């Protein structure tokens, strides 16, 4: 492999970038004033990479030194990361108290007046651009910048060593940086319009990135599908914004959130429709139930793209938007009452998607598809959490609402970290298997149908890829919600609160509550199934024997994220992140007198909640997700490593454990009609295609025909008739002199009569 140890000295040019933030700090600049740098850096990097790439395509230094633009991208993302970390430190470490949000507006985009109903002209209104930072933004900003940086780091290794996209990587990095700009801009935007603008830019970049291997028919098709489905969502979001604008006369957060209910003047069902439309936009972007068809296909893009789009950033956009809806429904702080069913709808959509995605993930054999569906179901989790939060807010249960809102946001954090790492780990697995495959078949152009992503070919990789397997293990544990590891702290909160809502307040909430409970179990199964199929048992294909971990740049992000997923959950929970995210506290700190007491409180809160039925719920989730699911998966796919293969201690214990539960042949189950249906994604795609091809295309062809024949036909008819008419007239000139004389006399006499009549 080309990876030499001194690859990392390529990072030397990035050192000065690190000095930028301290320099700004010394120059006395406020942290939130520097926020525009986060968006500006990638925005400048985008054209530089494209132009440099186009000009220096193929020359050596560009390829090796600059990694075809990768280093420039990394630098830009480093700037954004450093500035966001700077803001984070200032806000978390109590240096700055912001009264909930900080607004600085940069430029006025377009200004105009509006004719009011009393025919007078309103004052000039402005669509400006500005920065809005509060706790949710901070968390999302950190997640986005941190993960973008790591994924860009990862793609230096993943993309540049792949021979197929030899001179095309500059396009990848340019689109990657543009995407990052879109995400950062969306998170920082201080009004809904600019949120929408960056939202659509992310849509464009997801189209470009998914369609990176544009010569592949399936990739181009997947890109188009992704863009169109998100576009449908965006259109509804736009309509929602229009309604909002009509209600509040402005889209600025500061104006709207100051008093969402306009002293009770706003009519609730118009606001309900606005929020519902925006929720449809969120569904489109975060691939929830009706508009989820594009996410599995989006795996056509290179793995860093899937990691970026389907773990870290884009899918969180939908959640961020729903999070932004909280002030509307927060009855406590002059929110608008009567919007309960919005929360219900959100929860139900979440529940359905979670259950559906988890069930489909059961039968997926492609490692990235499994992760895609797990993203969909985990996002659905957070949607359910937000749904119940909205419901609680609107119901006045302030404490429960803030808790579940904080928990879902925290779960978003954990999920992003874990899922980003899982995608990168799967990327490294695919990469290594692919390389091994190329090595084995040097003459390798007889395209045997070996698919590097198919888990059925893998197995027993634990011994060959120690770092990836441990990282994958920790990531899966965090997603499953194994106690004390990462996701457990937040997932358990969501389930408890939803059940609380279902049992005590709203019988209707029981639906999503049951669904997410089952999904918890199913997550346990398919995540561990994935891990066992790839890492435990004997290799199922000879190629797999030659796999070894050697590409540079890949291992570092895995290690960092593995650490964060493992410990991050517990530590942050200790520091009261849930309450911080929901705005209860101003900053992260030990709100308990001593560390030990805080730990006891957290543990007791997680495992022995005061409310008895919550305790039952809590324990059933742990039972389902941690014990039943993995055991069942181990029985089907588990198995000890082949002799002579040693894995790292933790992984070795797990693989040996997986072998102990005996094995059960699930072949007849996998042929059943249910799994057949699940294979075809419950035929959603089939029905959507059918609906489209039956209505849209024939109607378009008819319209084209109609236009050509009917409207054009009329014009042609007019022309042909006039020609016919001229022939008739021509026949009058007979050529006989006598007729001419006749006409002559008739003419003169008639003129004479006319004159005579007039004069007479």
């Amino acid at each position, binding site marked *: 492999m080309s990876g030499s140890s001194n690859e990392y000295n390529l990072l030397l040019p990035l050192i000065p970038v690190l000095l930028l933030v301290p320099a700004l700090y010394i120059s006395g600049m406020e942290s939130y004033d520097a926020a525009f740098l986060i968006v500006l850096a990638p925005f400048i990097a985008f054209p530089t990479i494209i132009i440099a790439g186009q000009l220096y395509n193929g020359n050596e230094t560009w390829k090796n030194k600059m990694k075809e633009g990768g280093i420039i991208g990394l630098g830009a993302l480093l700037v954004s990361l450093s500035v966001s970390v700077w803001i984070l430190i200032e806000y978390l470490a109590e240096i700055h108290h912001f009264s909930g949000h900080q607004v600085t507006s940069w430029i006025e985009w377009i200004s105009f007046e509006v004719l009011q109903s009393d025919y007078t002209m309103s004052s000039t209104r402005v669509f400006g651009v500005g920065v809005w930072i509060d706790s949710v933004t901070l968390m999302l900003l950190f997640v986005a910048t941190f993960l973008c940086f790591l994924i860009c780091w990862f793609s230096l290794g993943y993309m540049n060593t792949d021979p197929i996209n030899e001179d095309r990587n500059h396009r990848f990095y340019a689109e990657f940086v543009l995407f990052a700009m879109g995400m950062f801009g969306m998170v920082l935007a201080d009004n809904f319009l600019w949120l929408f603008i960056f939202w659509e830019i992310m849509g464009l970049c997801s189209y470009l990135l998914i369609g990176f291997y544009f010569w592949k028919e399936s990739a181009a098709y997947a890109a188009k599908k992704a863009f169109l489905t998100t576009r449908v969502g965006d259109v509804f979001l736009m309509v929602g914004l229009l309604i909002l604008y009509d209600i509040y006369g402005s889209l600025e957060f500061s104006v709207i959130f100051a008093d969402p209910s306009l002293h009770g003047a706003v009519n609730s069902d118009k606001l309900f429709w606005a929020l519902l439309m925006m929720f449809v936009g969120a569904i489109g972007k975060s691939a929830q139930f009706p508009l989820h068809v594009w996410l599995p296909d989006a795996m056509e893009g290179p793995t860093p793209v899937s990691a970026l789009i389907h773990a870290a950033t884009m899918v969180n956009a939908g959640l961020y938007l729903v999070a932004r809806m909280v002030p509307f429904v927060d009855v406590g702080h002059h929110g608008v009452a009567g919007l309960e069913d919005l929360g219900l709808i959100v929860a139900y959509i979440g529940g359905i998607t979670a259950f559906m995605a988890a069930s489909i993930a059961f039968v997926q054999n492609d490692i990235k598809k499994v992760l895609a569906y797990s993203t969909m179901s985990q996002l659905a989790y957070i949607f359910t959490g937000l749904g119940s939060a909205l419901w609680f807010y609107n119901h006045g249960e302030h404490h429960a609402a803030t808790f579940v809102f904080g928990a879902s946001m925290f779960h978003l954090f954990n999920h992003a970290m874990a899922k980003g790492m899982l995608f990168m780990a799967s990327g490294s697995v695919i990469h290594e298997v692919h390389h091994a495959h190329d090595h084995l078949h040097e003459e390798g152009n007889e395209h045997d149908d070996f698919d590097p992503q198919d888990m059925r070919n893998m197995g027993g990789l634990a011994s060959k890829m120690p770092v990836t397997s441990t990282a994958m293990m920790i990531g899966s544990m965090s997603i499953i919600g194994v106690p004390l590891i990462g996701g457990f702290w937040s997932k358990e909160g969501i389930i408890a609160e939803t059940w609380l809502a279902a049992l005590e307040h709203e019988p209707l909430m029981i639906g999503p509550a049951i669904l997410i409970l089952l999904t918890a179990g199913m997550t346990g199964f398919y995540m561990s199934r994935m891990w066992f199929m790839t890492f435990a048992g004997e290799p199922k294909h000879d190629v797999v024997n030659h796999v070894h971990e050697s590409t540079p740049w890949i291992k570092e992000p895995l290690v960092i994220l593995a650490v964060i997923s493992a410990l991050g959950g517990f530590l942050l929970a200790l520091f009261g992140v849930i309450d911080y995210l929901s705005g209860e506290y101003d900053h992260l700190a030990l709100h308990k007198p001593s560390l030990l007491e805080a730990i006891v409180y957290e543990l007791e809160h997680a495992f022995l909640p005061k409310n008895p039925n919550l305790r039952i719920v809590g324990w059933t989730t742990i039972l389902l997700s941690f014990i039943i699911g993995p055991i069942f998966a181990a029985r089907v796919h588990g198995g000890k490593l082949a002799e002579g293969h040693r894995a790292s201690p933790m992984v070795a214990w797990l693989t040996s454990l997986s072998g102990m539960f005996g094995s059960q042949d699930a072949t007849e189950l996998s042929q059943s009609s249910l799994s057949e249906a699940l294979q075809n994604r419950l035929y959603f795609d089939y029905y959507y295609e059918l609906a489209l091809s039956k209505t849209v295309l024939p109607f378009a062809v008819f319209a084209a025909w109609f236009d050509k024949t009917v409207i054009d036909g009329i014009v042609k008819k007019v022309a042909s008739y006039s020609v016919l008419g001229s022939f008739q007239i021509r026949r009058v*000139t007979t050529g006989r002199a*006598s007729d001419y*004389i006749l006409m002559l006399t008739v003419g003169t006499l008639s003129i004479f009569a006319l004159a005579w009549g007039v004069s007479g």
Partner: protein
Amino acid sequence: MIDPSWIAALGVILFGIGLLGTFYHKNAIVVLMCIELMLNAANLNFVAAASHYGDVDGWVFTAIAISIAAAEVAIGLAILLSLYSTQGTISLDGARELRN
């Protein structure tokens, strides 16, 4: 002295007959003659007016009209003869060149 209005009436009738003649005949010469007839009718009117108003100009006009009519006949016949030499016939239906 006869009442001039009657002479004018005669003129009009002669004019009418001459006019009809031009439609009826295929033979160019007869058409020419009918035109001569119409010209004469016109002269009658002139004379009627002259005698009615006692103004001599009427007669001058008639004299001029007569001489012009003479010139016109000469040229008409000349054209007819050349038509005759090219077409071989002077019937009006024969001449179809006007029709493109």
